[in-house]
């Protein structure tokens, strides 16, 4: 990107203007995500920087909204903070219960999506797969179809089969979230299988390995980064999904996004911002993991970044 020495003045001016424009666009991308972090430590119940905060006065900051996440919904929030207080918080605090539900739903839907998606991706990436294009289009479609249509369809479908009466908690939401996560697993796993040299599996078979051993020893190490990224994508999809939960989730199936949704619609309080901050930190951790996996996968397949 460096300017050549012979660049004219006009070109120099344009070059620096261009860099400034890019910087502003990057700011537009990232600022909204970072701005919630300091605001979540605001001691006042406002959504803007107070004068004390701007002067970096420690009295302008507090952990009160994080504390509220623990105490909100507790039977006795003002008791001494000993083990029974924590037990109370663990059992009764609304946000903790929502987090538990989100993790349970996310875990099971991720397991289903990853297992089915990986197996299917193995079939889809074989050159002899029949109707490949049409089947791929169907399997990716949950990512494209508007979420409100999915939720509406599931609402009718689940009420016609009375899924609430089957006695399996979270079943409806877990199946729906698995469906929504599957396209991500398919995309990431097939991406790691692109250019997979099928003579490797034939060589393994030639050397006497049965198909299971071949899969375990030859294919699995190559696709594992893709499988893990796909699983993370599926988990994030479930962890962030609110519309389906609103439409088909039972009253006791409160998840973090649902709780946030209600909070934003009714009375938005800075407690939402502290939840948002925690979620941003989680997404930074996930992004780092996925990036590391991607590089590992590229290294394994010999596409190293120059």
């Amino acid at each position, binding site marked *: 990107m460096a300017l050549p020495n012979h660049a004219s003045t006009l070109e120099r001016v344009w070059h620096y203007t261009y860099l400034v424009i890019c910087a502003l*666009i990057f700011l537009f991308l990232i600022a909204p995500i970072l701005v919630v972090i300091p605001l979540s430590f605001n001691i006042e119940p406002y959504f803007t920087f107070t004068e004390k905060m701007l002067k970096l006065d420690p009295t302008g900051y507090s952990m009160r909204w994080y504390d509220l996440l623990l105490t909100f919904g507790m039977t006795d929030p003002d008791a001494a903070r000993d083990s029974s207080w924590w037990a109370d918080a663990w059992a009764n605090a609304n946000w903790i219960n929502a987090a538990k539900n989100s993790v349970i739903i996310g875990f099971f839907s991720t397991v289903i999506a990853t297992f089915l998606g990986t197996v299917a991706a193995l079939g889809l990436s074989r050159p002899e797969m*029949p109707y490949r294009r049409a089947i791929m289009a169907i399997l990716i479609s949950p990512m494209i*179809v508007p979420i409100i249509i999915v939720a509406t369809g599931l609402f009718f479908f689940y009420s016609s089969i009375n899924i609430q009466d089957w006695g399996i908690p979270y079943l409806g939401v877990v199946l729906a979230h698995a469906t929504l996560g599957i396209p991500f697993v398919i995309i990431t796993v097939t991406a790691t299988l692109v250019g997979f040299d099928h003579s490797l599996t034939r060589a393994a078979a030639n050397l006497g390995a049965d198909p299971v051993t071949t899969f375990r020893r030859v294919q699995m190490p190559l696709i594992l980064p893709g499988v893990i990224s796909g699983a993370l994508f599926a988990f994030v999809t479930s962890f962030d999904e609110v519309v389906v939960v609103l439409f088909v989730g039972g009253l006791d199936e409160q998840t973090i996004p649902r709780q946030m949704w209600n909070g934003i619609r009714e009375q938005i309080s800075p407690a939402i911002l502290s939840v948002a901050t925690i979620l941003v930190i989680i997404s930074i951790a996930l992004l780092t993991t996925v990036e590391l996996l991607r590089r590992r996968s590229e290294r394994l397949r010999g596409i190293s970044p120059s």
Partner: protein
Amino acid sequence: MASAQSHARRRAFFLVLPLLAFILITFVAPIGQMLHRSFHNDGFTMHEDIGTGVRTPIMTNLKAWFDANPAGTEPTEEAFAALAADMVVLRELKAPGQAGTRINYELSGTRSMFTKAARQAKKLEAPYKDAFLDLDKDWLNPDLWRVMRDASSAYTFNFYLAALDLTRSSDGSIEKVNENRQVYVTLFTRTLFLSVLITFLTFVLGYPIAHLLATLPLRYSNLLMILVLLPFWTSLLVRTTSWMVLLQSQGVVNDSLVGLGLLGDENRLQMMYNQMGTVIAMTHILLPFMVLPLYSVMRPINPSYVRAARSLGATSWTAFRRIYFPQTIPGIGAGALLVFILAVGYYITPALVGGADGQLISNLIAFHMQKSLNWSLAAALAALLLGGILILYWLYDRLIGIDNLKLG
């Protein structure tokens, strides 16, 4: 050889089969059922007891009269007698509300006529026509009889007509609804307009940074790429909340503008709960979907083409316009189509920051599902939206190929 090939094909297919079955059951079947509901509503033909699940046909006498007489026949004494007999059944089944609601979808204000008539059902005596007119003289309304005739068959396309701001006139021909009741076409137009605008904005913002990322050495571009990918990984609700914090009238943007003296304290900008809020927040949220396809097309472009153009005397603008830009068009197509598809069906962000005039078609579907409870109309609107999306999706697959969809 042939048998080995068909064996391999079968093995590949069996790997995909479990997932295909799963998607068909949890995804395709529910949507199919919803589509069925958009042209099938048995509110005026069948009653199902919630407790026992017993299904009883209702309005059978009236249906027999409709079958015997062609459309447009003046309701005779015989017709009112049939109606009266059906009202007795409705009363016994406690179903007048259900039947009235079905008629009320197409002709508002009629639900109470049914509940009222059913309450008096046993006292209704011949001549039935006069008895009904005593209750409410709207019982002679030709529109009501036309709607009842349509509803006496469970299959109807009237919900699609309603979703397109059309209605049937009393002689059965299709016409536009009253101008002040035209909601849906306006909303479809607005959804398309805002989606095009958002797609254009993501292009304008995405092109420069994708170009920068593609031309920087990988060490730097991988770092900058994090700024694109982090929003992509961050919860949608978090990003929407952030925009609410930034844009509200006591929010960070307004406070900064007032603090800098660019804006008087009394005329703070209203940037949220209107179309502007929807556009700003959705542009931000969908920007990565534009940048990533652009980047993956721009990265492999060989810089020596532009250099060759320059050395042949082209100005940098001409070199960009004639040499570089045409090579990026596939990326623009992929990004624009993807952003547009996602924007058209957006729900969460408009619902939270859109206010009244920033709502999209998805929000109206949700409204009919949750508030007005006109599920068939919601399903018809959803079917129209789905049809549009599937055409675009097909186009995307034709032009770009779903295999080329990349995530980061």
